[in-house]
């Protein structure tokens, strides 16, 4: 850190942003990997419907297909927002 550095605008560490974005997208793509082709579309349509009722983040819906003893199991998980935050949100 040089003594003249304070003259410059403090840059946001873009590597951290890149890391977080990649973590999310890679996890999402891995969860649908090898599954049926309709999974990403199903996921985005479900997200649309949920957003009509609850305000959730775009990565709130996770879909996973697992096969267990010859049975295919479609696992769906939706992370709902923190109720206190949601209240603050609806208040604005």
């Amino acid at each position, binding site marked *: 850190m040089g003594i003249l550095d304070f003259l410059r605008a403090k840059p946001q*560490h873009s590597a951290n942003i890149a890391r977080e974005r990649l973590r999310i997208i890679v996890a999402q793509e891995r969860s649908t990997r090898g599954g049926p082709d309709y999974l990403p579309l199903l996921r985005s349509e479900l997200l649309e419907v949920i957003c009509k009722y609850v305000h959730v983040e775009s990565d709130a819906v996770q879909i996973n297909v697992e096969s267990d003893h010859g049975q295919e199991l479609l696992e769906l998980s939706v992370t709902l927002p923190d109720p206190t935050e949601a209240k603050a949100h609806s208040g604005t």
Partner: protein
Amino acid sequence: MAEIIVVTSGKGGVGKTTTSASLATGLAQAGKKVAVIDFDVGLRNLDLIMGCERRVVYDFVNVINGEASLKQALIKDKRLENLYVLAASQTRDKDALTQEGVEKVLEDLAADGFDYIVCDSPAGIEKGAHLAMYLADHAVVVVNPEVSSVRDSDRILGLLSSKTRRAERGDDAVRQHLLLTRYNPVRVAAGEMLSVTDVEEILGIPVVGVIPESEQVLAASNAGVPVILNAEAHAGHAYIDAVARLLGEERAMRFLDAPKKGLLKRMFGG
């Protein structure tokens, strides 16, 4: 038994051919008999990086179609006794490569006493890339510390665990290794570039080498001499380390830290 190594990435321009050339050269320096094959039909470039572009008479597709023997098509490296290049065809379209044809050529190379066959994959996830990885025992996934390259590499890792002969037969999985290129420790220290640890954590496979960003890499390709042969270049040393690790040796990573700045630079930045 020949070991088959695919050098792949998904994304173009990350350093696959540079890496193929240096790994093949390094393995040959270690005394192995090595063939390096360009799978990028229509966009041949390995010959240029290896510096043998004017000696290409027959190519990979000629061998597959029976128009030339392997012996005629293999170009012997001028620097190393036991290193051979098989060029891609420049004129045929991508359908010229067939799975049976590729399998036959690799089997013949193995029968010929080759220890290592390095397959330089084309970019993308089309047929050429599939064929380059199909028979692999090892995969070196070349990645730049940059978002699109990391994501594409993950896509390739998915294909390696489902679309290879090992995956189809249920044999032991293809051994996957990450190789970071264009690594700039100064920018990593400044928080402007993903670090080795970041990339390793996101993709979840071990790193076999980190090649620092260096003008020596361009100089090497300009000259047609694989950068691993440049004893002065850090990039060359980093490839030597990567080859040693591929051969099972444990070596600490080098060139990961930013050089210490002088007093003036520390005071005035830059």
